[in-house]
């Protein structure tokens, strides 16, 4: 197999908030003449989830709100599992990053009539903190970042998919990244002194999921194969109201905004009865995890589901005109797939939304492998067991920028490019080429199978038996995948080959999620064990760490270090009100 | 098409608009009862006003149409670069010469 070799100084994988900021900051911090390359699975700025951010960006900008309060909300939202130093840096740097976005990148966020920034409160926040641009905040952020990156002398490798992190022979450092140039189907090995991985996780191994189609956990699978520790891998956040439009459409799973419930939207079961109050006193306005579990439990009861097996969201009692005026984007989106949100019923289902788990990093985004940095949804630690709405994009932009700064500095102490372990390179190529030798078989049914298995056995509510069954199902699918073949006569833009590779990544990470889920014998944040419904003692909180050595995957527990605040305590000054939000949801 | 060409085209168009309206009005008036060469010439020959009127029109329309055809030639016939500009200049020259000849014809004594 011929492979093209390519050298650069700083390589960035992904063009979400993390990748884009890394590119811009690396350019500012690296010595003149440093070559920066950005490689992405899709088109620059047109893939990934940062673009899909609706609600907004959490940042404490005064008016009573403080970094301390943002931090406390983040720790409490994460149920004391977050790495506190990371959470602190997230909250502290978000202030700088939002100013950078407005003043240097050119975003314009919504204003109050007096011209000051408009901020609102998502569930789980004790202050009006979320900066936004209507409900299309991500488009504004990514488009503006994209313009800046496109206009700079950064080498662009679009539709280049990373498939393997290639270490040096002694395994101590990263030599470069193996990619497939998707347009030609050729392999390209890119050496770099520092690499930022910002491929954005993305729990798309669930039947219902929100992230964009390009996200298939490639980054975490690559990290796993190169032996890096991954933390909090059991933590998958479900959004309660994904659109449910049947199995034949990609629209299924996409988010119907949180604000619908906030505004008074009601959830009805198949018999058109309200049910959320059976599960929580706050009804539909409870937090994401609670509502998701309520819906899931209701769906499990026989005879109470909608035609497609979910529940309904109903807005019409608020007045169709009113709904149309308040949620024009959502109404139009539903109409496009044949639903009348304003006056009728729309089927919804909980949908996998965000992945809290990720590579173990330090607050400077460094990993255990010299030369590899990880930021954004690929990095674990900042959110613990649950991510607050609005903290996702803050996290990716803050840490992407940090990674850019740090790489630009670190590179000064790095001499020559490192040579790869050719045997690992060879092995990764062989792995990727495997389906081309097999007998041709459709790949999509296997993906469907994995998504069913994860949804049923490792989903919103988990049990030991379920997860054990899940492991067997994943293993079976993985075995089938290894025998499934793809026609290899033309590898240019061969989506089916990439479907195979996508599914390979998803299977690997699904196994880790399940094993981490088994290792956590309590219920925290997004992780709910029906056999261990108790949250366990906060003081002795632990997080899971998964690591692959050879063919064995080990999951261990590590104690959370309360470096800034201990459970039951707060860093807010005495006498501060618990919440500044008047009608806290 | 650049800003300069654009401005030239729009300015000439604005100049022509009243002239064309006027011309049509005169024609509607003139053809009542039929036209003869003598009638036309009787009105126009020796008139400095008519000379200016038609002279302005010819200059404006030559510029305007040359730019217009240049655009059409580039978009629909794929002409570009020097060929395109040469064509536009030729059209301009042709229209100016023919036009001024005509103006001279109808207004000179």
């Amino acid at each position: 197999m011929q492979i093209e070799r390519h050298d650069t100084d700083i390589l960035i994988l992904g063009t979400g908030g993390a990748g884009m900021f890394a590119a811009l900051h690396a350019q500012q911090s690296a010595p003149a003449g440093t070559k920066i390359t950005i490689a992405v699975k899709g088109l620059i700025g047109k893939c990934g989830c940062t673009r899909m951010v609706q609600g907004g960006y959490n940042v404490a900008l005064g008016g009573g709100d403080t970094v301390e309060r943002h931090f406390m909300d983040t720790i409490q939202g994460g149920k004391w599992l977050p790495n506190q130093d990371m959470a602190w840096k997230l909250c502290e740097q978000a202030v700088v990053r939002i100013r950078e976005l407005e003043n240097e990148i050119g975003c314009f966020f919504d204003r109050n009539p007096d011209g000051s920034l408009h901020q609102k409160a998502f569930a789980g926040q004790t202050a009006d903190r979320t900066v936004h641009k209507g409900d299309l905040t991500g488009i504004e952020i990514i488009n503006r970042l994209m313009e800046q990156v496109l206009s700079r002398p950064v080498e662009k490798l679009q539709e280049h998919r990373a498939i393997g992190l290639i270490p040096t022979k002694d395994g101590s450092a990263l030599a470069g990244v193996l990619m497939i140039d998707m347009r030609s189907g050729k392999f390209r090995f890119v050496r770099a002194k520092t690499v930022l991985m910002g491929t954005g996780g993305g729990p798309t191994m669930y039947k219902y999921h929100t992230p964009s189609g390009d996200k298939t956990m490639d980054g975490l699978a690559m990290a796993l194969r190169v032996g890096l520790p991954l933390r909090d891998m059991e933590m998958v956040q479900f959004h309660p109201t994904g659109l449910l439009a049947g199995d034949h459409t990609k629209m299924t799973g996409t988010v119907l905004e949180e604000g619908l419930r906030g505004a008074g939207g009601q959830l009805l079961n198949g018999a058109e009865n309200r049910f959320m109050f059976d599960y929580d006193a706050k009804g539909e306005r409870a937090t994401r995890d609670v509502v998701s579990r309520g819906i899931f439990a209701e769906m499990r009861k026989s005879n109470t589901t909608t035609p497609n097996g979910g529940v309904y969201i109903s807005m019409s009692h608020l007045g169709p005109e009113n709904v149309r005026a308040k949620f024009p984007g959502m109404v139009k989106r539903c109409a496009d797939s044949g639903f009348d949100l304003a006056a009728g019923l729309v089927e919804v289902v909980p949908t996998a939304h965000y992945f809290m788990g990720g590579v173990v990093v330090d607050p400077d985004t460094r990993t255990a492998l010299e030369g590899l940095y990880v930021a954004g949804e690929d990095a674990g630690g900042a959110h613990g067991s649950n991510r607050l709405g609005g903290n996702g994009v803050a996290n990716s932009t803050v840490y992407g920028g940090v990674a850019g700064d740090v790489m630009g500095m670190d590179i000064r102490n790095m001499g020559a490019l490192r040579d790869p372990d050719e045997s690992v390179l060879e092995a990764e190529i062989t792995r990727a080429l495997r389906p081309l030798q097999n007998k041709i078989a459709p790949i999509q049914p296997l993906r469907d199978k994995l998504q069913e298995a994860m949804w049923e056995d490792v989903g919103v509510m988990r049990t030991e038996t379920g997860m054990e069954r899940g492991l067997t199902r994943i293993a079976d699918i993985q075995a089938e995948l290894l025998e499934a073949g793809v026609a290899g006569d033309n590898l240019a833009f061969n989506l089916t080959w990439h479907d195979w590779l996508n599914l390979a990544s998803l299977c690997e990470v699904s196994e880790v999620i399940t094993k981490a889920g088994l290792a956590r014998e309590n219920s925290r944040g997004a992780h709910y064990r029906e056999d261990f419904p108790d949250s366990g003692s906060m003081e002795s909180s632990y997080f899971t760490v998964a690591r692959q050595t050879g063919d064995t995957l080990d999951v261990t527990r590590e104690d959370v270090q309360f470096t800034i605040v201990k459970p039951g305590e707060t860093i807010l000054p005495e006498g501060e009100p618990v919440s500044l939000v008047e009608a806290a949801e | 098409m650049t800003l300069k060409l654009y401005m030239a085209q729009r300015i000439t168009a604005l100049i022509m608009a009243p002239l064309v309206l006027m011309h049509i009005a005169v024609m509607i008036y003139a053809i009542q009862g039929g036209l003869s060469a003598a009638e036309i010439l009787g009105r126009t020959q020796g008139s400095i006003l008519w000379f200016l009127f038609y002279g302005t029109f010819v200059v404006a329309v030559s510029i305007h149409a040359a730019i217009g055809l240049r655009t059409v030639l580039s978009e629909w016939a794929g002409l570009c670069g020097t060929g395109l500009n040469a064509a536009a200049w030729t059209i301009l020259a042709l229209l100016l010469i023919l036009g001024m000849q005509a103006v001279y014809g109808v207004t000179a004594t």
Partner: protein
Amino acid sequence: MIHGHRTHTLWIAFLLHRISGVALALFLPAHFWVLSYALNAPQKLDGFLHWAETPIVKFAEFGLVFLLSVHMLGGLRLMALEFLPWTSGQKTAAASAVAASTFLAGIFLLRAI
């Protein structure tokens, strides 16, 4: 040619404007040429004008005036759209430009007959 993405008023207005512009530009040299006979050969011009009395030529003249007014009003519409920041009613403007041209040329035709 007018299919798919082109089936809407503004595009058709553009096409009309362009075709009328090109047609005018083709006609104009002929017009100038005829008029330039005025000086050196008035009798030829008379002959021409006589020929111009035939109905078919009358109709052609109607067409010409029509083209001229279509193009002019279309052009004025376009410049109004460009220079007066209107936000709506452009379709109406396009349609009324064509209507007005027909009217103007219609008068011309009636008078000529």
